[in-house]
């Protein structure tokens, strides 16, 4: 059977891995190639690189970082940051990404997802959704863009559903409220989006223990993403997968 993926995430700024709380107060965590290599060796199933300042700087994720990680890495690599058009997605693939994550630009122009899916395949088109609690929305969550700074008047579950209709093959679902808080994934958000879409979901934001991950897996997450617990060596990927396995989750070891 298809196993649940454990995905270390590298938030990158200026060629270094950083980590913040609710997308702010970014602190240096190390070199992306060194961290990615270590995670693969420990048993990571995939690596996600997000260039966290690309959109704000009005540029694409840095090609040099993607190429350097690709050369070292023998597992899948998803890259996001500043993808505004099909040519940007193609450039990241050319640099060595296997899949491309799109966020702000897809909200502004949803056809972008269709263009990427038609040209590069649905499995290449990852829609990253940053969601924050909003009691006025039907699902209880609204979509944020520009690294969580802007509210765009969209319901998170409705947007997920539209993104999949437009061609997205996977959802990278991040809770803005939980990001960096260590309080666990937002399971209500996960349930709302899980009910809305048939494609795989990577859940993100707030995990600090295997228990948090096992809870999300039992709510239908196909992949669990975390950053600081790996960067700060609280958990090696291997030890974490051992624990997940004992908690009943199907993980590759």
């Amino acid at each position, binding site marked *: 059977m298809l196993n649940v993926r454990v995905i270390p995430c590298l938030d990158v700024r200026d060629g270094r891995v950083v980590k913040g709380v609710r997308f702010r107060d970014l602190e240096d965590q190390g070199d992306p190639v060194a961290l990615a290599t270590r995670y693969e060796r420990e048993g990571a*199933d995939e690596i996600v690189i997000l260039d966290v300042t690309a959109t704000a700087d009005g540029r694409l994720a840095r090609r040099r970082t993607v190429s350097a990680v690709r050369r070292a890495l023998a597992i899948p690599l998803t890259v996001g940051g500043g993808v505004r058009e099909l040519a940007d997605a193609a450039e990241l693939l050319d640099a060595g990404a296997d899949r491309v994550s799109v966020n702000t630009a897809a909200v502004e122009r949803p056809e972008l997802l269709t263009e990427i899916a038609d040209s590069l395949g649905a499995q290449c088109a990852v829609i990253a959704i940053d969601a924050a609690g909003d009691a006025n929305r039907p699902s209880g969550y609204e979509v944020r863009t520009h690294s969580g700074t802007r509210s765009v008047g969209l319901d998170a579950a409705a947007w997920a559903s539209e993104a999949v209709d437009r061609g997205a093959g996977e959802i990278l679902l991040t809770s803005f409220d939980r990001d960096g808080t260590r309080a666990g994934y937002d399971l209500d958000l996960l349930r709302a989006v899980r009910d809305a879409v048939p494609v795989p979901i990577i859940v993100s934001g707030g995990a600090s223990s295997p228990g948090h991950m096992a809870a999300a897996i039992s709510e239908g997450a196909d992949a669990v993403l975390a950053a600081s617990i790996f960067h700060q060596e609280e958990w090696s990927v291997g030890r974490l997968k051992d624990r997940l396995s004992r908690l009943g989750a199907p993980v590759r070891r």
Partner: protein
Amino acid sequence: MMSPPEPRAPRSNDAERAAIGIVSTGVANVEAVRAAFARLKRDTYAVETPEAVASAAFLVLPGVGSFESGMRALQDRGIVDPLVRRVSERRATLAICLGLQLLCDASDEAPDIEGLGCIPGRVSRFAADVRSPQLGWNRIDVSHESRFLRSGFMYFAHSYRLAELPEGWIGASCRHGARFVAAVERGGVLACQFHPELSGASGRRLLARWLDFAPLPTSGGAASAVADEAAAPLEGAGAPC
């Protein structure tokens, strides 16, 4: 082997060092493939002409994109015929993901377009009750004696698959909902629905086995790995393919 050595020295070292041709379909991301071979200390180069398809010691048909765009790219470059010939001669050819699907007769993804017809069968979509695309690691089971394939976890990223093991091919199967074809091999041809280049250490070992064994004729155990003979049939000395 009592016969005196050939005047020309065996060129096994050439075969060991031969660069790997990667078909440029224009819709595939080949960086991961290139990086995987680079880690095995092998050079790669882009293949865009019929002549290059015919002459490559090792050829990779990668695949990202749609069945239609993939077939069109092969047709536009005029490489359909040499590719079919190469596979029917069982020469060292590695097809990945969409590459495997293109080798089949047809696909429900583009019902009006003919595939390469090397692997009998029609590609179809996963049933509606399983997660699609299948993204992630799944276990393959090798059902027969296989030269290249071994059971273990491999990385998949696809919505379409071949459901039935084709006749005349050695195969590996995998379960996602129902069973489907994870890979097939015959002679030096290896076609994988999964991505060996993204399958970590097990993928690396698979690529290494393909490089080690694919071009070698199995003539009574004599490993006279002359590069020219890579074009010869592989199942026994001089046997027809």
